[in-house]
């Protein structure tokens, strides 16, 4: 669920088709830098009404989704 939401947000940001983004897609390949990642986490926070502190380095879409899921379950 998180992965799908994230893919949709990324598709909007990077202006690409959501179907081209997979769990192992790197942010670098989408032209997404670390400030964009913070921005994405903030948008998810706002949408889901939770606080998420991004304290790890995440390189792929799947890693970020997993991180967020971990924070929500905690």
């Amino acid at each position: 669920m998180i992965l799908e939401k994230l893919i949709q947000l990324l598709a909007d940001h990077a202006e690409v088709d959501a179907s081209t983004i997979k769990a192992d897609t790197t942010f670098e390949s989408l032209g997404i830098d670390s400030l964009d990642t913070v921005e994405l986490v903030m948008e998810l926070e706002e949408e889901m009404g939770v606080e998420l502190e991004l304290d790890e380095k995440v390189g792929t879409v799947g890693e970020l989704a997993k991180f967020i899921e971990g924070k929500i379950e905690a």
Partner: protein
Amino acid sequence: MSFRIVSIGGYVPPKVVTNDDMESLVDTTDAWIVERTGIRERHVCEMETTSDLAYEAAKICLERGNTKPEELDLILCATVSPEYVTPTVSCMLQNYLGATCPALDINAACSAFIYMLDTAEAFFMTGRYKKILIVGAERLSGVTDWTDRSTCVIFGDGAAALLLEKGDNYLVSKLVTAGGDNVIKIPNFNGNSPFYKREQLRPYTHMNGQETYKFAVKSMVKDLQDVIAKAGLTEQDIDCVVPHQANLRIIDAAKKRLDIPDDRFHWNIDRYGNTSAASIPLVLNELVENGDLNRGDLVALAAFGGGLSSAACILRW
């Protein structure tokens, strides 16, 4: 009882360092800097001290305000990059101007311009001060590590001064502090006491870019919404927004989350970089010089930075 703004003046040192120049100093590119920060060039001191910058800006401001230095009741300077711990920039400025009033510096990092407006308001409220000169002046090139590509591309030097008089144009403000040193710090020199055991940290700007970004965007949005509501206004009523010029992407991210029309946000970070306490007044000065800011305009300012600190206010120009 607060103040009205009589006049404004700004000054940057003449030496310009472009992104191409930065490419020959550190491992970076113009494309990366522009994409990441919106900055294309910045002004850097070669011989000027922070007080010299303050003096040049103050002279212009006082001339435009038709006021002599002897008429001033107080001088306030906001800076994190004074050439001396003491005498302060405001003291040196008082000396250069030939003024005779008390002078003190304010350090609230990048929020200092608005903290300084609040401080000036408080002085006016005592009834004992009629004309106050406030200055934001920075030589950030002196507290930046020019071998660190993540910070040396961001900061620039400059100063701007405003002359304030008793009035009622400072409508509402909000100051926030979230004290701590884990996101932004500029360590001082430890000294050479044979008894002091703490490690000497590099005396340059240390900044966690991502944490700063998050704090900045959230603060700017919340603070602006709060002051607008407190003033009994709507976001549409604001004629002009001048945010602290830290990073163009922070401004873009905040714009998205606010209902203030995009074209009311102003910046010049592309030409000056982040000049901390001088950044907001340098934008205001340009707007006045270009005729884009008019008497009666409702201006919202927002700042955020080291401390951590943030602030926002609404004033009538």
